[in-house]
């Protein structure tokens, strides 16, 4: 059972770190000593690892089981974290990914011994292309941000090939931080374009900054306010007319399946977060996968190796003169790709189309329920998520952070807060399609209760949370003198 508030009557021991328990010489691993010896020169060897844990298997299980009780998770709490698409992660995906035929397979085994894996990968590329309306897909990137980097590299390689090296990327002020960061990492300068009061990008604004030094525009659609960039085609025309390309951040694809294909919006390159739209678990921060889809004119630049079908067999083709090369080792996060594949065939076209529609329904329903008590920065119709602010609550000095912390006492994970940056005090709510009406009602009630508390007992709200294993933690202190590892000295 979980360790919660420590109180006078609560005598449950504090959780030690794995380094703070155990007994010298203890181990949970048993293997008979190997006969013979090794010929590694002593000068190249070390002693046993100082400070390493010395605990048994049951102790380890207890330690991590108790730790697990300190987490909120999709399977125990509603987790409406905007932009993160915390939908249900189906159990069958986990079972399938653990089949020996997927988990005990070696990447350097010759292709004839991994035909099932190659077949799955090639099929998944095709499925993702169909869903997003693109012509070709690479599954190599480990997550969305690496997908962005790969996508920008493709653009760069393509333009270079055309002898048209460009220096800049246009990124809206509503964009996720990875967009500008990836641009820099790819050697580009970032020019920011501002969204209008509704959080939407207008062609005119792009027109102003678009010139032939601009390699591409990175756009998120629906954008991070959950609003569909209705001018995206016009914007794409502007960019294309000046010889630039359009990159779509596909983190919000969960809003579009069967509703609109990025490939039809003038998008040349996009990434997809399989750990969002395609239900693979977030794992407390990964692993995920960030496949990249492109229009055919960029196909030759995709990372190697490409999976190809020769006759009845699947093979690897590394002979792609124009390729940008590898962006990671082997085949990407294969185990995650297996889960996404399983999800797609489980839902099928009908299920995927239903998923996006129900995601929109849930978001619009919550938006409606909350708009009486919370300020809406954009009045545009919302897609799969909606963004509120703390403007009304600020009158009582209650901030978005306070609201988020107080939500914990109601047993709900807070929305994404203070993002997008253009919205001050943003509360970004993405319920996802796998939540019930009753759960949304309960969450709305909690939000409304907190807005009432803000009026009646602001200080009470500002001191929340009260029911969590620890209270608000001193982040300034953590950053001032960083203590990043346990050491015997103690600390």
């Amino acid at each position, binding site marked *: 059972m979980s360790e919660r508030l420590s109180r006078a009557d609560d005598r449950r021991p504090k959780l030690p770190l794995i380094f703070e328990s155990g007994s010298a010489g203890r*181990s*949970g*691993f048993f293997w008979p000593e*190997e006969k*013979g010896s*090794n010929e*590694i020169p002593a000068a*190249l*060897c070390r002693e046993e*690892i100082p400070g390493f*844990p010395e605990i048994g298997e049951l102790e*380890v*299980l207890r330690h*991590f089981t108790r*730790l*697990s009780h300190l*987490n*909120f*998770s999709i399977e125990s709490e509603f987790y409406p*974290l905007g932009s993160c698409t915390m939908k249900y992660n189906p159990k069958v995906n986990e079972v399938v990914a653990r089949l*020996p035929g997927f988990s005990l*397979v*070696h*990447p*350097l085994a*010759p292709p004839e011994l991994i*035909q099932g894996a190659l077949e799955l990968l090639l099929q998944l590329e095709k499925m993702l292309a169909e869903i997003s309306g693109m012509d070709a897909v690479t599954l190599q990137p*480990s997550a969305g941000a*690496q997908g962005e980097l790969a996508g920008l590299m493709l653009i760069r390689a393509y333009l270079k090939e055309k002898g048209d090296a460009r220096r800049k990327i246009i990124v809206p002020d509503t964009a996720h*931080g990875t967009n*500008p960061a990836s641009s820099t990492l790819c050697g580009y300068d970032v020019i920011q374009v501002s969204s209008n009061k509704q959080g939407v990008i207008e062609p005119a604004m792009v027109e102003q900054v678009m010139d032939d030094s601009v390699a591409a525009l990175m756009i998120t659609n629906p954008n991070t306010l959950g609003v569909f960039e*209705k001018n995206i085609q016009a914007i794409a025309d502007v960019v294309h007319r000046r010889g630039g390309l359009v990159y779509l951040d596909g983190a919000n694809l969960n809003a579009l*399946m069967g*509703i609109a294909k990025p490939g039809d919006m003038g998008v040349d390159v996009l990434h997809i977060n399989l750990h969002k739209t395609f239900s693979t*678990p*977030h*794992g*407390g*921060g*990964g692993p995920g996968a960030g496949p990249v889809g492109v229009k055919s004119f960029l196909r030759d630049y995709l990372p190697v190796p490409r999976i190809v079908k020769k006759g009845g067999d699947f093979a690897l083709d590394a002979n792609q003169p124009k390729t940008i*090369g590898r962006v990671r080792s082997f*085949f990407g*996060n294969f*185990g995650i790709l297996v889960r996404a594949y*399983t999800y797609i065939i489980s839902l*099928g*076209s*009908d299920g995927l189309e239903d998923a996006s529609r129900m995601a929109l*329904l849930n978001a*619009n*329903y919550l938006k409606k329920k909350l708009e009486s008590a919370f300020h809406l920065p954009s009045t545009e*119709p919302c897609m799969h998520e909606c963004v509120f602010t703390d403007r009304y609550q600020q009158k009582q000095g209650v901030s978005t952070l306070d609201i988020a912390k107080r939500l914990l006492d109601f047993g709900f*994970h807070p929305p994404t807060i203070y993002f997008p940056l253009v919205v001050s005090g943003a509360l970004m709510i993405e319920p996802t399609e796998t*939540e*019930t009406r009753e759960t949304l009602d309960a969450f709305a009630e909690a939000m409304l209760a907190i807005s009432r508390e803000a009026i009646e007992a602001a200080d009470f709200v500002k001191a929340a949370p009260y029911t969590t294993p620890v209270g608000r*933690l001193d982040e300034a202190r*953590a950053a001032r003198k*960083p203590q*990043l*590892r346990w050491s015997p000295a103690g600390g």
Partner: protein
Amino acid sequence: MRYTPHTPSDKEQMLRAIGLSRIEELVEHIPAALREKAKIALPEGLTEVAVKKKMVALAGKNATAQDWHFFLGGGIYHHAIPSAVDAIISRAEFATSYTPYQPEVSQGTLTAMYEFQTLICQLTGMEVANAGVYDGASAAAEAVLMARRVQDGRRRILVSRALHPQYRSVIATYLRNLHDLEMVEIPFTESGATDAEFIAKAADDRTACVVVGYPNFFGVIEDLAPLRAACDRAGALLVTVTTEPLSLALLKPPGDWGVDIAVGEGQSLGVPMTLGGPGFGFFAAQKKFVRSLPGRLVGETVDAAGRRGFVLTLSTREQHIRREKATSNICTSQSLCALAATVFMSILGKQGMRRLAEVNARRAHAARTRLIQEAGLAPVFSGPFFNEFALKVSGWSERRGRFFANRIVPGAPLAEWYPELPDALLICVTEMNEEEEIEQLVRTFIAR
């Protein structure tokens, strides 16, 4: 399957609350031209039973380490994984939570990450480590980029040709667009080690860092002393990349060699091979570089009541705050795999890690000796190694059939990456390769 819980009446009530009557009204603000083309041309959904059946069939078309004898390493290793590891990472509280942005309800994940950072520091002998990155290859690339940050002005990167070829190509991909950087390849000697003399000559005041595998791609354990010396003379950073971190339970750790940045792939520490991913990249460095580290860092602090707690810290390095000035663009990483490694290292502990490393080394050395003495194979390199080594195997393309017929994959041919080594097979032996398997391997080599 459907995972949407909406009943017809749920939909109706919700639509009514919103003030609509049809679901399609939710999307009518989207250009009709887009909506008309949006249908998805894929098969209909399946029952869970049908899905499982289909996936079992696909999985059945792959050769697994359960039914085959793999002597494959080259960056991904088949090791014993206590069942307790999967039991923990399968727990929904870990598997279905997000990056711990709300520390009050994420202490489980944050505490484990802090323990992970500590374990990596202990294993590598380094002072600080982050919470992990994508994989060993991107870790190597991030290390190079970090060297560039802390060594500004220096534009030259020396990379050993004995570093994992895929890692070299990832580094190259990452650097290609940073026009100002030049990547120089360091040759290897007949011992299979990186050419220290070459470095001594090539490393100069334009050199940001020297990158070598430890052990390197040939399984050879580099003597880092001369490299460290050369780097000191040139003022360059020494970066090691480890693809088989289990070896660090036996080998002198990078920190003891005075390495500046020690990175690698963590798969071998409790993560199944899974065709090479997901695993995780680990990233450790000297303390003075802490504010230049890429990726997430968890730090210790306290709450108002003085209770110890852990938080993501120094995030001003990161993209969500720093945007284009971030030290890296990484966001979602490989947390759950890092957790697997944390549980794995906790169970094995001080003694278990040492024992397992010893078993690998002894078994691999014994096997190599037998292959040379009994099967008459010639060694390719003379340098010391941990659990993998290269041997000369001529006419592999004709011989492979016989091995596969016996369900043996004796190794990975190096020719694909090293034309200069046409007949070399990279052979890996771990604790999972039993006596009989090795016996079979030797016999199959003899039977030619």
